[in-house]
């Protein structure tokens, strides 16, 4: 054993490696990405790691490895599980031979996601066991235990951390390499009665799964990470006051334990396996209690389970939480919100607490402390923006310029380019989920044939889930323009390689999948590739292509500025600048500022993309080559 300062996601990867994982697959998505990246960096000899093209493929690759007796780990974020849900639901019936852990990171807030969906529901829905770690150290140990459970019960299992566990760091105890488990897969053994899903097999396995989950619930009641924490000292007045307890899971458990250092002494039930629920342990916790407050993020899963148990066993225990509006039902918990919730709970009159005003509960967060700075000067608002020099800005601007005055809809997608919605670009009219822009554009065009319908999609997203949309458009003779924003990386999640880059997570070089060739193969009417940083050419290209009949595409190709050496910086000639501010009004580039009424380009941000100089009517913006101030 030794100590390392690790991010929760790094700890999960190291835990999987210590458990002898043979294969890791996944698709990037905040807050899950670093698990696979760390697995690639620190993998033991013989371990295979890949970024798959999307979550569905990743799930299938990991399942195949587990069929062959390997220990496999598949990683994704919560919305990625929606993509992988088809193989997941069937795999739950078939099961595995080698241990398989499905790492799905949930994102309360949401901090960087489309939804606040709760993977614990997916565990229930698919009837699979689910592990919910509360800290980096626990996640490290839990992933190893998850592999053991998976193998013992021959079923895939979920490990579901949330953002603050994934991205929290801690100095934790990890195994030395000579303490690692070495797992030798014994290979795939043909058995069509086991591996080929048919209605009869599903029926039989359904019966087994239900029986197994009863056993698992029993097993989990004895699992050391499900635990009742009894207070050191008993409550002061035990006769009159209602006996209260708190149930929590995940990061909220740590907030509860921090709060109880000063807020009071009540028993706490920590739920580390929300499915199957540790019923026997919960009964032991509920015994003698009058009221329980449930503190958890996303949906009231623990709360619902406790309600079910109280109903099943006719227990006269009041269960409070999101359903009773004692706790806010959206957004992430914080140390402060949990402290406030506990204070309210312990201060409530014992007889009948009643439900507090829901609106008031949503606002408990800040109060006294933020009131302290109520007299502060107005604070700057800093919405996330496209980086200075980002080629997406140029692409959006080219389409905007080309289509000025025309009736248009711009269907966006998931990636850095979602930020194209910000003023002044204002170029994202819709955004739903990965790859959806294509379908939305087609649907709108069916209802509004006089609208120029555009779908914007990034290169990684194109491979992940836009190709079927393009095939659909061609097959059904849609009229739309597909804009591919090809920056040769998966930028938003931290620059992962993808099929178009020709690089893999094993460090190898593979043949690049050519987006233009793919689109031509599908049969698009017109496909053109252009550099978005050449404004005039880009605008002409869009104008010409958009007028073609049927399905056509423009590929804007220019590398992500975050992984490219800057070309230089732009300098503004004071004697030429007429202070018309066109550059600022139309581009919204973070490098362009107004200081004492004059336009300046911040040399520490400017990359010399020259987009501003191409639209400057006074010719006042000149490029300085070399990039010496921006090394």
């Amino acid at each position: 054993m030794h100590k390392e300062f690790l991010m929760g996601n790094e700890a999960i990867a190291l835990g999987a490696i210590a458990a002898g994982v043979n294969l890791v697959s996944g698709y990037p998505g905040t807050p899950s990405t670093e698990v696979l990246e760390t697995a690639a960096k620190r993998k033991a000899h013989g371990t295979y790691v890949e970024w798959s093209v999307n979550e569905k493929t990743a799930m299938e690759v990991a399942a195949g490895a587990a069929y062959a007796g390997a220990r496999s780990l598949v990683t994704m974020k919560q919305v990625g599980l929606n993509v992988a849900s088809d193989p997941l639901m069937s795999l739950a019936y078939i099961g595995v031979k080698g241990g398989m852990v499905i790492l799905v990171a949930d994102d309360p807030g949401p901090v960087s996601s489309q939804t606040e969906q709760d993977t614990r529901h997916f565990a229930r829905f698919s009837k699979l066991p689910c592990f919910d770690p509360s800290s980096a150290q626990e996640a490290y140990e839990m992933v190893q235990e998850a592999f053991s459970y998976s193998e013992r019960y021959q079923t895939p299992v979920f490990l579901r951390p949330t953002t603050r566990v994934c991205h929290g760091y801690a100095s934790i105890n990890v195994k030395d390499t000579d303490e690692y488990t070495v797992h030798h897969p014994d290979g795939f053994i043909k058995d069509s009665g086991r591996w080929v899903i048919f209605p009869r097999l599903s029926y039989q396995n359904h019966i087994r799964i239900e029986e197994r989950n009863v056993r698992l619930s029993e097993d989990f009641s004895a699992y050391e990470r499900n635990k009742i924490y009894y207070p050191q000292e008993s409550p002061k007045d035990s006769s009159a006051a209602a006996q209260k307890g708190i149930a929590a899971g995940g990061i909220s458990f740590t907030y509860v334990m921090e709060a109880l250092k000063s807020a009071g002494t009540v028993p706490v039930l920590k739920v580390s396996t929300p499915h199957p629920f540790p019923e026997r342990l919960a009964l032991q916790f509920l015994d003698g209690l009058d009221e329980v407050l449930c503190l958890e993020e996303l949906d009231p899963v623990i709360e619902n389970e406790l309600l079910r148990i109280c109903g099943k066993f006719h227990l006269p225990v009041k269960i409070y939480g999101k359903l009773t509006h004692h706790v806010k039902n959206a957004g992430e918990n914080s140390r402060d919100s949990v402290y406030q919730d506990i204070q309210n709970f312990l201060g409530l009159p014992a007889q009948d607490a009643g439900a507090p005003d829901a609106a008031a509960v949503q606002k408990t967060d800040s109060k006294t402390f933020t009131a302290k700075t109520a007299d502060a000067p107005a604070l700057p608002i800093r919405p996330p923006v496209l980086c200075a020099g980002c080629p997406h800005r140029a692409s959006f601007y080219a389409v905007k310029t080309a289509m000025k005055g025309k009736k248009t809809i711009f269907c966006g997608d998931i990636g850095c380019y979602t930020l194209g919605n910000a003023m002044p670009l204002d170029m994202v009219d819709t955004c739903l989920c990965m790859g959806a822009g294509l379908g939305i554009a087609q649907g709108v065009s069916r209802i509004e044939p006089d609208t120029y319908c555009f779908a914007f999609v990034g290169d990684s997203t194109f491979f992940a889930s836009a190709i079927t949309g393009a095939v659909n458009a061609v097959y059904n003779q849609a009229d739309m323009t597909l804009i591919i924003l090809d920056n040769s990386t998966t930028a938003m999640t931290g620059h992962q390689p993808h099929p178009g880059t020709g690089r893999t997570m094993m460090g190898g070089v593979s043949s690049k999948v050519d987006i233009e060739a793919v689109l031509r193969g599908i049969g698009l009417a017109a496909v053109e590739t252009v550099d978005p940083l050449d404004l005039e050419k880009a605008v002409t290209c869009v104008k010409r292509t958009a007028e073609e009949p049927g399905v056509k595409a423009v590929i804007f190709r220019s590398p992500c500025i975050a992984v490219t050496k800057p070309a230089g910086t732009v300098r503004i000639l004071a004697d030429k600048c007429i202070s018309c501010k066109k550059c600022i009004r139309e581009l919204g580039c973070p490098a362009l500022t107004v200081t004492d009424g004059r336009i300046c380009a911040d040399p520490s941000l400017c990359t010399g993309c020259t987009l501003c100089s191409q639209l400057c009517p006074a010719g006042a913006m000149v490029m300085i080559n070399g990039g010496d101030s921006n090394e």
Partner: protein
Amino acid sequence: MNKNIILCGVGGQGTVLASRLISAAAMDRDLPVMSAETIGMAQRGGSVFSHVRIGNGLFSPMIAYGEADIILGFEPGEAVRMLPYLKPDGAVVVSCRPIMPVTAALTGSAYNGDEMIGYLKKKVENLTVVESAKACGKIGSPKVLNILLLGAAVQSGALGLSEDDIRTAIKRLLPEKFHKLNFAALEYIRKHTLNA
């Protein structure tokens, strides 16, 4: 020792490296450390923070309101934003150089950094203002802002770590070619720390 430390600024200012150095220095002294920081979309020009917690008996990496021993503000407005986290007698170390949000250039609503510093002076007794532009100029690199603030935090006494602790962490975490520059920043700030 138990310490709660908040680092805040704007994406790209180097808050993450500074929090890594603090954590490494604490680990070198065999102290348990936890931390949490902004990752993802908000990093692109948005407000960013790191919470660093040092000591025994910790459950959560997050710091609660009124619990921070010290705030390292890489930007005056961001330091004010984090003030609710500061203990009543907590320290603030802040760079005086404001960073204008993109929205300021668009709407003409630039904010005043001096006003923020003035507000901090009114609210915080143990305040150190780092003349970062001047200091970076003297040292010869804009990249030492994080080390200047770390150095000022050491000098304030509220960090619970010594300059030598930070020096050792720099040696361990950064490539050798950057050592001299960062040590120069530590030395500069030791000689020029100005309690406001």
